[in-house]
């Protein structure tokens, strides 16, 4: 058995143990974990952002960077589609 295979087996065992421990550490199904963030948003979203829709206030205010990433993904998708299909024209 070569050294490469030994390294691969050791790495596999470490990753497998990591995954098993993570699976054992998850909380039971149906039992909510920490709910403090939910309660904070429900209590404070109207006072802090003035919006009635809590989802929009989270998407555009509390997590604006996430929406910026989504907009960037859309821009990249459009640019990619135009780049691919323009070669077929003319």
């Amino acid at each position, binding site marked *: 058995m070569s050294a490469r295979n030994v390294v691969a087996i050791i790495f596999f065992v470490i990753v497998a143990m990591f995954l098993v421990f993570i699976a054992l550490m998850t909380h039971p199904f149906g039992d909510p974990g920490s709910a403090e963030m939910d309660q904070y948003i429900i209590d404070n979203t*109207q*006072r*802090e*952002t*003035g*919006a*009635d*829709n809590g*989802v*929009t*206030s989270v*998407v*555009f*205010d509390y997590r*604006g*960077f996430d*929406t*910026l990433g*989504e*907009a960037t993904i*859309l*821009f990249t*998708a*459009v640019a990619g*589609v*135009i780049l691919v*299909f*323009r070669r*077929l*024209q003319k």
Partner: protein
Amino acid sequence: MSGMSKIVKTISNIIFPFITIFGLYVIAHGHLTPGGGFQGGAIVASGCAMILVAYGSLWTMDKIKEKQLSILESLGAIGFIGVAFLGLIFGLVFFKNFLVNQDTIPIFNEIGKGLSNINTAGVLPLMNFAVGLKVIVGLFVIVLVMAYATRPNGGEIE
């Protein structure tokens, strides 16, 4: 893809304004009711795609150039990031909602108490409009370019 029959064109002409107005309503009321920029933009873009299917890609490409659509989508992106940078300038934090809880411009300063007015929520409607414009034009450009590239004799390189 050529145009479809006269019946399809007539029905599309009739229901296209209603689809557009409903989509703009969803965008404008994104901070009050379920929906928002992405969802309303998808509705308006589907209406534009219906016109594209009814009239054909050649006719649509004759009426509107993808250069103009590119400029519109860039305007949406610049508006979104510009509002975020205005938050950095006036509120010292990127993506700060600087139009709410302040006294300089009181028209945007209303705090929602259930069933609010449309001028609540500070910069959220502006961001909704920017993202809505971006999604409308982006999805329509995707459908238009793909339909135009698959027209008869469109795939051949001459």
